[in-house]
């Protein structure tokens, strides 16, 4: 049986996630011009990190698990960065 590290932290993370949701919806009404999508994606990334770190328990996982999670992120990053760099630098 595992040591209970407290369910309070899970409720706090959920509160933070809902606050970020409210923030991103609110920001969508502000005219941020061409940055609005980037800002929305940044908030989404923050939410995703909270879910992965606390709910998916990366905070207490062994290195092999963290390595797999990071690998997925890096492969996806290469796919997106490579293709989109080509797209936005075309003339």
């Amino acid at each position, binding site marked *: *049986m595992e040591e209970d590290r407290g369910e309070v932290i*899970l409720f706090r993370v*959920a509160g933070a996630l809902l606050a970020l949701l409210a923030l991103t*919806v609110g920001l969508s009404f502000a005219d941020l011009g061409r940055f*609005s999508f980037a800002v929305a994606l940044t908030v989404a990334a923050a939410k995703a990190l909270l879910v992965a770190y606390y709910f998916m328990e990366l905070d207490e996982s062994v290195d*092999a698990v963290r390595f*797999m999670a990071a690998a997925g992120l890096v492969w996806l990053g290469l796919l997106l960065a490579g293709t*989109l760099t080509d797209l936005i630098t075309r003339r």
Partner: protein
Amino acid sequence: MTDASAASPPFTDREQQREAARIGMWVFLTTEVMFFGALFLVYFYDQHIFHDAFASAGGRTDLGLGAGNTAVLLLSSLTMALAVRAAKQGRDRALFGRLLLTMILGSAFLALKGLEYARHIHEGLLPGASFVYEPAALARPAELFFYLYFVMTGLHAVHMLVGLAWLAVLAVRARGADGRVDLGTPAEVAGLYWHFIDVVWIFLFPMFYLVRGH
């Protein structure tokens, strides 16, 4: 009767088995990242090229429903995390209740999604021969937006259905466990899958609901 403390072959102890299950699930989730990743790439590519049309089409989705559904899914991740916590402590009754709550929230998400689909189809926004869009000049790229919308949220919904079935099996096991079976590892692996679906939606939400013109 199975010994709750014994590991299944080829593992020598429970912790080793738990770690292997965790790593295996993350490897699978990495393939899922690439599966959805390819679709995200298509979206970002098209969003860059058809920026104005995507902003116009993004205004046609229901922000209130989308935000509400996001909140429902985030809360279901909370109840899932609480369920995993209960499973690890061997509290089968709490595990059962929290799984049930997670399934109710997941079903509510799918019900709202179904309502949205019905509305969009009624409005003629289902890509294909019946697709109608004003202004007509943006109709082709707007159709692309809704094609991506239906494919990506549809695949996400299919993952939700798989997740719900998975949780149902787990709930039945928790019901009959009586403290004889350690459900910590099965719950944790199912939880990883559920949270992953949540993460996918966290990114789908800005892509299809927050992209809108001013």
